[in-house]
């Protein structure tokens, strides 16, 4: 009886091991959608930007973009900043007041975002505005440079594997698993939230966008990446999986198999 149980357990373990390995080698595709499909676009009416602004933004940022108690002034912002906030879904803001804006599916279609960007930038009038929406060239030849620039400037907060990190003050450097190349560069140029501005040559900006894109697709040659954030999950897995399995084995081997009265 007990032999049968032990054997059945071994058979199950064996099957699980093989299935897991097969799954690991077959699992190549990653789920890739970067943005949710936009809601039905309205026609590009003139004045669409203003309408959308008054509807979705003015309650916090003020009808003239001068800011209110609920939201900061938008005067002086460039297109890059507005486009980043809208296209990553951070704006319109939907969190608890004072909390960090989170990435979510954008509330507007691309056309609506373009109209809003144009309108918000126009609010600043002649005042020197921030950077425009950058044009980004992703190129495999920039990959190595991208790694170097990323390690020097981005890894301290976002982590070497771009899986995000806690940077104190309740702030989180978000994971970069869904950011697009343009959004990456927009963030570097405008420094959203607690992020500082990274004023780098165009080639370095392109290189970082290239490397971040690479990380999003990067294979894990060594199996499950368990978060890719270093020794904390590794130690956890060593105890729970490694020591857990070994304790089970030790218990099965070490228990008294032929206590008096057991069938032989």
């Amino acid at each position, binding site marked *: 009886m007990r032999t049968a149980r032990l054997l059945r357990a071994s058979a199950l373990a064996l099957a699980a091991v093989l299935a897991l*390995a097969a799954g690991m080698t077959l699992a190549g595709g990653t789920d890739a959608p970067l943005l949710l499909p936009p809601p039905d676009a309205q026609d590009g009416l003139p004045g669409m930007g203003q309408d959308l602004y008054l509807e979705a933004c003015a309650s916090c940022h003020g009808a003239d973009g001068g800011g209110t108690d609920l939201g900061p002034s938008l005067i002086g912002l460039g297109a890059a900043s507005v486009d980043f906030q809208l296209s990553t879904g951070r704006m319109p803001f939907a969190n608890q007041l004072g909390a960090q804006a989170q990435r979510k599916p954008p509330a507007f279609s691309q056309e609506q975002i373009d109209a809003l960007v144009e309108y918000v930038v126009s609010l600043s009038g002649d005042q020197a505005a921030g950077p425009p929406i950058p044009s980004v060239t992703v190129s495999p030849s920039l990959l190595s440079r991208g790694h*170097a620039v990323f390690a*020097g400037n981005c890894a301290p907060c976002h982590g070497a594997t771009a899986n995000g990190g806690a940077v104190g003050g309740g702030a989180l450097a978000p994971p970069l698993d869904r950011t697009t190349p343009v959004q990456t560069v927009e963030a570097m140029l405008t420094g959203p939230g607690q992020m500082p501005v990274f004023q780098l040559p165009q080639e370095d900006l392109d290189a970082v966008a290239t*490397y971040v894109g690479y990380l999003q697709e990067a294979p894990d040659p060594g199996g499950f990446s368990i978060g890719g954030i270093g020794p904390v999950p590794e130690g956890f897995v*060593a105890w729970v999986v490694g*020591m857990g399995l070994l304790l089970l084995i030790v218990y099965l*081997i*070490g228990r008294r198999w032929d206590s008096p009265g057991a069938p032989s």
Partner: protein
Amino acid sequence: MILRWVDERLGMASWARSGLRKIFPDHWSFLLGEVALFCLVVLVLTGVFLALFYVPDAIPVVYDGPYAPLVGQQVSRAYASVMELSFEVKAGLVMRQVHHWAALVFVAAIVLHVMRVFFTGAYRRPREINWLVGIGLLLLALAMGITGYSLPDDLLSGTGLRVIYSVVIGIPLIGPYLAFLVFGGEFPTETIISRLFVFHVMLLPALLIGGVLVHLAILWRQKHTQFRVAGATEHNVVGRPFWPSQVFKSTGLMLLTAAVLALMGGLIQINPVWSYGPFDATQVSAPAQPDWYVGWLDGALRLFPPIEFTLLGVTIPSVFIPGVLIPGIAFAVMTLWPFIEPRVSGDRAEHHVLDRPYDNALRASVGVAGLLAFVVLTVAGGNDVVALVFNVPVELMTDVLRIAFFAVPVLGFLLTWRICRELQRRADTTDARQPAVLRRTASGGFEEAGDGH
């Protein structure tokens, strides 16, 4: 035939006869130390393979291997050799990962083994010497882990070395001299990698393996402890002979330990040095952690308040107390515990029958409190990861853990004390029934034992 040939030359038969009949008590917890031993076997085998490919050299070279994001970058030869091992040597990556997982599980098994020995009082007279040897082995295992962690010369391991250097330099009076001797100058130095290699593959393994042999020899000489099973007394050992069942079980356990480590090494990625990139003293990646068994020291550094003062004209750096003094005291108490306990309890008798964990309330409570302090510090070592995963401010984590470091062990002590006392009250003192057992006579024969007492 061969056995006979050997015996004629070495006369091993009588030794083997007594050795193979040696009695091993049955209990699963006695196998924890074996798991650690078998992890060491795996570590030595995979380590030899790694050492044949690793180049302990900090001289910079330009990386030109298959990992695209690093092509053209300047890396150390050490890092380049680890990259080559991971991406170009067949079965190299799996060997590296098995080695690293085996190291993490090795220390985990040692910790569980120490806990078993501690909570059952197995270190009591006459086994104090083997406790000391065991603590030495634990320290050697930690040193092996730290030196090994630093060898790939990636960004994470270099950051770890940086912290170690800072703690050494902070030792009052001798710190800077000691740090310059160990590292060969002001951090970062090119010599440290090759020095760590010498320690990791020569000096420390020799001491570790030698220590393990002494540990086992003393165990063999003193015979195993045993739980309070039927027939067990202070003057005998009840269990099964070494040959054949124990040999079979242990061999099976060795292979199964290796199987678990192979499984982890294949399926779960560990220490992806290609992601971290080569070490550069002006770069850093967050989160930055050591391997789990050093996490408590890093946690102590994180929790300790910003206190720096001068004592008789000597600056006491803020890393000294949490980085040197507190771990020093912790290890001293642990090492000396077999000599501390008799002073408190007055019990200086020989013990071969193990206590149940609740039999000695003081020991259990001290052990639980120490363990909880260790756990709190370990969590503190990963406070930024906990903050990231549960989306709480790091500062809040730190403040809570600072309180927890004092509160949790105290509560654990009191609770354990109460539980032990309650269990002692309830403990059933009636003797278990005694099945017929064979008793080995001094002359080597057997007779049926009547009453064990």
